[in-house]
Each structure stands twice: as C-alpha cells, then as structure tokens.
C-alpha cells in the first residue's frame, strides 16, 4: 500500500513539474529542426499572423547559405536560424521579454517607446546607418524622412527598431467582375468599359484609350477607369447595383474593419501633413471644420454633395483633440453613411455571424458560384494581408471552378478616391496601421550580437524586401523597387498594392509621435477606436444602420466632443 502511495505521489510530482516546465514549451521553435552543434544558432521570433512566415523561411534559407562559412565560437562554421512562430503580439512579447531567449524578433502592435524605455532592444544606430552589403543605401535611407525622425530616441538619437511589413487597410475591387460587367469609367462619363480600354503606358494624352485617368490624373497607369473621386465611386456603386452586383461587403462580425478602412481613407483625404498631425499634435496651419457654420449632409440616393465650411487653426499638444475636427473625418463618415443608407452593401456585412474569413470566402466565391449566390460582390473591405489568410479558399475555388487561384484572379487594392476633383494627381497617403517592427533582444549574448545584427540587416536588403513582397504579395514599409520579373511572380493584387506604394507621389504615414501626449494617448488612438463617438457607439456602420435619419454631421460633432471631453 505504501509503495502505491509513493508511486502516486511521485506521479503527481511529475505531473506538477511537467505542467510547470511546459510553459517553457509555449511557442517553441520548429520541433522538427534539430540544433546543429557544428553551427552558430540565431534564434528568431516571428508573429505568425496574416502575413505568415513563408517569407521568413525563404529568407532564412538564403541567409544560412550566405553565411555557410561564418566562423563562430568554438570552431563552429555556418549559421542555423531557429525560428519560433507564434501569435503573440507586442504587448505579450514585451511582458515576456525577461524570459525571451530569441535574439531577433518581429512583432506587431508595437509601442516603440515602451520597448525602448524598458531597455529590451539592442541599439541599432550603427547598423541602420551602414551601407548595406552590395547596395548603395542604408536601412535608414529606405525609410521616409518622418519615420527616420520618429525612430530616433533620446538626446543621442539612437535607433532601436526597424519598421517591418506595411499594414494598410482599404478596399479590394474585383477587376474580373468589372471587366465581365464592363464597369470601368470612360472619358465619356459612362461605366461601359473594360480594363483593356486603358491607354498605353506613356501616352500622357490618353488618346490611345477610352478610360479616365483615375485618381493619379495620369493616363496609361494602373488606376485608369477606376473612381478618382467620391462622386465617381458612388456612381460606380449605383452602376453595380443596377447591374445585379452587391457593391461592397465587410465582416458583419468585425465591423471595425470598416473603421480601419475609414482611417486610411481619412488619412488620404487629410494629406500627409494632416495625417501626421494626428500623432505629432503639431501643425500651425491645420484645416478644420468650422463648427459654428452649418453642415449640409448628403441624402441617400442623391448626388454626394457634402457641404461644410473650414477654418485654419494652430494645433498643439494641449489642443490635440482638434485633429478630430479635420474635414477628412467628416467626409469618411459621410462616405460610410452614404453606403449604408443607400443599401449599397452585401447583406452579410451586418450579419453578426460573418467572420472576416467568411466574408473573404463569400467575396471570392460569389462571382463564381452563381447557384449559391444571388449576386456577386464587387468590393471587399479588408487589410492588405487578407489574401494570405484566404490562401486555402483560393485553392479550393480553383479546384472547384478552375482559373480561380490567387495568381489568376484579378483583384485590386483600390487607391482611395479623393474627396473632390481638386485633389486628383496629388498622390496617395498610405497609413500604416499595424505598427510592425523588427528588433534585437538587448539580452542577446555579446558573442551572438554580430550575427543577429547581420540577420536583421539581411532581412532589409533589397533582395529580401523584394522576396518578401513576391511571397506575401504585400509590401514592407520601406522604399524599394520591384523588377519586371518580380511582378511576374506576383498576384494581380500584390502588384496593385506595390503600384500604389511605389508611385512617385505616394507618402506613407506611420502612427508615430514623440510627445508625452502621444505616449499617453497611444493606446486609445488606434485606427479602430479613433471612431468612438460615445460610450456606447464605437462603430459608424452600426450607428448609420440604426436609422436612415442619422447623419454624418451628427456623428462628426459627437466624435469631436467625445475626444475634446476626454483630452
């Protein structure tokens, strides 16, 4: 009996011990990869979300090959990169940094200052300013001037993190459907054309084609025949509805996808200076809506003709809430109000059971499966990474219907239309929304810092940046150019995204600031919660769905007052 008791106690102790040690196994590196003791190991953590890890696996293969002769400690030759893939975002990563054994980390949802002030990041200043091997630029040279400044911390302006992939939120348009229903906009003002009616590249007069010049104002480019203004966009959705298409869909369960899209749309309307003011709270000539003057809202079904007056103010940290008085907030609200009130949305967009992956599937399937769907869906509100998430759906649809794979279907990340014609040709402003960064753990043993820095640098070479874009069909938040061969390997969607980002007058805005106010407001001022109108109303779509009499101007005023009241 005693022996049985002892055995039981030992078993319990073993279970207890295992349960404790099992924490160490959370998010372990690839279990199939055995440590090669003849090589130097570099431990890497990657947030395995929508962008996946295929890009990292490919980069690791090249890095291990490039550093196969690297001489490490104790006669070790070559490098082995051990990758941990998990879905822990920045808050969790920061909380667990004391026990994190990885040397290089890529994560999203980062608050740069929290990481830096907690001393968990290795100083990268020298590395980011070095000219990259085989190139003529440094990592810093690839960043926008605003980002370069925002990354410099403290009086000695040290850099601790490098921006990673770019998370843009927007609208994806089904070009195949646009072609099938001939819904491209022609110079004659009619939606009767196809993509093939585009002018040849370089034909600045547009004489060789029938389509309008699009939002960039240049004929023969990627956006010809696509809506350049809100007016044209609404003309398009009305045309879609008339031709048996549900114009636009989004996840009914995650209404916030629309909010993040609205934020991108608003940033584009604000222009780079206005969008950056949301994070710097510093703009001596900020254009805002004059609340003392009347605002004329738009009536569903009629022409979109929002009217308001503006005034110029000086924005400071103390009056930071004034950013919410920018006309772009009002116009984005009016945009959504018009879509909702006009019923230009796909019915699942308000079905609480429709997850983001469901709407991706339905959007992709609706054009192909005419038995299962009454109407095809023309546009999808999503983040630019959604095709990675829908990879299996593409495969399944390809098997079922043929010619429906990711590389075959023509889906375009739509450049945001401008509020009015005066902005045509002024370029796009892209708002990076995911706060993704790469950095090196400050606890990395000194003897492994050199190789870890080399790996992070390697990830940001032009070859790696291009490879990332080819594999994920998304972009990194840096300036780099794709070759024609690269484009051939990419999906139509990936190309469309790159076309916008690499257009000459495109500006990328990062949600970064250095002020105390920014640090204090950072968590509240995310793209989703920026639209919080009151304690109980956070989603404009739900608000407008509640009653058609509800207006964008009401929401706009309440939004402004809410922020002003809590500043």
């Amino acid at each position, binding site marked *: 009996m005693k022996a049985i008791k002892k055995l039981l106690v030992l078993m319990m102790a073993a279970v207890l011990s295992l349960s404790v040690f099992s924490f160490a196994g959370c998010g372990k590196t690839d279990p199939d990869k055995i440590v090669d003791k003849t090589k130097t190991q570099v431990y890497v953590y990657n947030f395995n979300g929508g962008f996946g890890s295929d890009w990292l696996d490919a980069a690791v293969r090249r890095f291990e090959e490039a550093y196969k002769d690297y001489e490490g400690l104790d006669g070790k030759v070559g490098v082995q990169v051990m990758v941990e893939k998990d879905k822990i975002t920045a808050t969790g990563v920061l909380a667990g940094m004391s026990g994190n054994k990885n040397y290089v980390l890529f994560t999203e949802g980062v608050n740069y200052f929290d990481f830096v002030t907690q001393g968990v990041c290795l100083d990268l200043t020298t590395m980011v300013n070095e000219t990259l091997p085989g190139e003529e630029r440094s990592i810093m040279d690839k960043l926008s001037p605003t980002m370069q400044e925002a990354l410099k911390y403290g009086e000695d302006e040290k850099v601790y993190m490098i921006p990673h992939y770019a998370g843009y939120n927007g609208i994806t348009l089904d070009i195949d459907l646009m072609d099938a229903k001939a819904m491209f906009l022609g110079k004659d003002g009619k939606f009767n054309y196809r993509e093939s009616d585009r002018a040849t590249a370089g034909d600045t007069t547009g004489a060789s084609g029938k389509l309008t010049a699009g939002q960039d104002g240049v004929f023969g480019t990627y956006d010809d025949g696509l809506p350049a203004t809100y007016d044209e966009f609404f003309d398009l959705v009305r045309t879609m509805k008339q031709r048996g298409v549900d114009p636009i869909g989004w996840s009914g369960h995650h209404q916030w996808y629309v909010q993040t899209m609205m934020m991108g749309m608003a940033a584009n309307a604000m222009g780079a200076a206005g969008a950056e003011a949301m994070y710097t709270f510093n703009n001596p000539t900020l254009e805002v809506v004059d609340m003392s003057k009347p605002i004329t809202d738009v009536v569903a079904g009629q022409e979109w003709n929002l009217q308001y007056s503006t005034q110029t103010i000086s924005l400071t940290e103390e009056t930071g809430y004034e950013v919410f008085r920018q006309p772009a907030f009002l116009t984005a609200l009016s945009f959504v109000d018009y879509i909702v009130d006009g019923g230009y949305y796909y019915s699942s967009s308000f079905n*609480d059971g429709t997850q983001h992956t469901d709407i991706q599937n339905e959007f992709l399937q609706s054009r192909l499966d005419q038995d299962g769907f009454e109407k095809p869906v023309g546009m999808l509100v999503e983040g630019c990474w959604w095709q990675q998430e829908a990879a299996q759906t593409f495969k399944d649809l390809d098997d079922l219907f043929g010619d429906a794979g990711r590389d075959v279907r023509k889906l375009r990340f739509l450049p945001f239309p401008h509020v009015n014609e005066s902005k045509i040709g002024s370029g796009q402003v892209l708002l990076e929304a995911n706060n993704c960064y790469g950095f090196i753990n400050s606890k990395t043993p000194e003897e492994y810092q050199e190789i870890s820095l080399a790996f992070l640098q390697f990830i940001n070479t032009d070859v790696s940046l291009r490879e990332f874009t080819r594999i994920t069909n998304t972009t990194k938040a840096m300036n780099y150019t794709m070759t024609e061969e690269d484009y051939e390997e990419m999906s139509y969607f990936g190309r469309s995204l790159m076309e916008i980002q690499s257009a000459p007058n495109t500006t990328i805005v990062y949600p970064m600031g250095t002020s105390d106010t920014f640090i204090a407001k950072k968590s509240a001022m995310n793209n989703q919660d920026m639209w919080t109108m009151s304690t109980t109303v956070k989603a404009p779509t739900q608000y407008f769905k509640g009653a058609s009499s509800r207006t964008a101007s009401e929401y706009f005023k309440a939004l402004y007052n809410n922020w002003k009241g809590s500043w």
Partner: protein
Amino acid sequence: MNNVITHKKRSGLRQRDIKNWIFIGIMSAIPLIQFAIFYIYVNFNTILLSFQSYTDSGKYVFNQFANFKKVWQEVAGTGVLLVGLKNSAILYAVGTFIGTPLTLIFSYYIYKKRPFHKTFKIMLFLPSIISSLVMTLVFLYFANYGIPAYWEKIFGKEIEGLTTSLKTRMPTILFYCVWAGFGTGMLMYSGAMNNISESMVEACHLDGASNIQEFWYVTMPGVFPTLTTFLTTSIAAFFTADMMLFAFYGDSAEGFLWTIGYYLFCGTKKATLSDYPYYACLGLILTLIAMPFTFGLRKLLFRFGPSTER
C-alpha cells in the same frame, strides 16, 4: 536499556521528520513560489501602481491620487464605467436570479434520474468541456443563420440574426452566458445532492412530501453550503465577469454591451505602459467596493439560510 531504545526512536523520528520536511518543502515550493509571484507580488505591485504614473524616461513615479482622480473623471465624464456597471449588474442579476435557480432545478432533475437525465447532463455540460471560442462560434452561426432560416421556414417571415439585431443582441448573449454557465454549477450541485442521506429522503417521502417539498425542505438545505459558495464568489466576480464578450467579439464588442470586467480586460490588453497605473487604480477601487459586499453576503447567507440542523 529503555532509555537507549527511546533515544533510538527519537533519532529515527528526527530523521524521518527531516525527510518529510524536505519532501513537503519540495512539493510546496512550486505552488508557494507561484503564489508569491502571481498573487503577492502582482497585488502589491498593483497597489503601488495605483499611486504612480509613467514618465517618458521609462520610469514609474509617485503621483499621489492622480489616478483616482482620472477614474472619477471617467465615471463622471465619458460614462463608460457607468455603462459597464449597469451591464455587470444585469449580468449578475440574470446569473443569480435566473441562472442559479435553473441550475438547481436541472441538477435536481438529474439527481432524481428522471427521463433523459443523461442527455440533459451532456447537453448542459457540453459548453464547459468544449473550447469557449468554438462554442461561441457555433452559437453565433446558429443564432445568425440557423434561427432566421428556421423562422422563415416556419413563419414565412425574414428576421435578422439574434446577435445581428441590436435589439436582441444583449438578451441573446445573456442567454448564452446562462446556458454556458450551467456546467460547473450543475456538477457541483449534483455532487452535493448525491451526498444527501438516502434515509432522510426516504423519511421525507414516508411523511408524504411531494417532489417540490423534498426539493425545498431536504435538497435545498443539503446543497446550501455549495450555493453559498457560488453566490459569494459571484459577488466577488461582479467586476471581473466579461459576459463572454471577449469570446464573442475579441476586443471590439459594441460599447453598449461592455461590462466592467470586459472594460478592464480589453483595457489592459491594449494598454501601453503609461496606461497600467490607471487600470491598477481602477482594480483597487473595485476590489474595495466588492470586498464588503462579498463578506456581507456570506455572513447573511450563513445566518439566515436554511440548514439541515434547524
């Protein structure tokens, strides 16, 4: 001789004692360390944080009552805490006055081994053994696709999904909370009911008591200590219950649904280091509010509740 034997015995005992103490020490070390870190340290740090604020140099400095003032501003200003308080109260009331009696009735039904009691047992315990995320997902599909489809088939009229319609969203989620909450309670109550003396039940029947009378006069006093524990812990959980909102909506539930627990959870999930003091302070205040109620209710229940000895 006797002395020698006694001495040997004492020496043996000491050695065994030492071994026992080592064994106990090793076995207790892990839970004690865990308790020290995750309870004592965390709570101590929370109290400290409540009186601190974060500076841009990356340090927390004492700021007296600034966080308490901020909490008050939230209560008086944006009203988000008041909405949370209202919803927490609704959740508590539904759980206590609908969920608990139903759990007791179902437990009694199962205890009495009435027809299909095993089926009921499985059905009601199912939400507790399946991942809550899976259950909520299945429930969402059922509520938003299944119910409207059946409704249309039976009544020929289209309706919105139960959580799609803003009017029915909260009641539906409350229903789900009650249903999903049956499992643990049912297991505990059934266990307590099975411990009630068979002879007492038989005596009760010999006296001509009906099932309802048996439930009220024999079963209820038998399970009352268990009931007391549940009611007391539910008061303590008043400010932490999130109405399953995170399982349903992640951190993007509509504002009108928020409970205090959800507000706290999502707040800390999204928080930057500068936000932690505010949430720590709020947590401290809520604990101070919940504590007297918890102890008070416990005392009242023990004093006035039914007992098999009275």
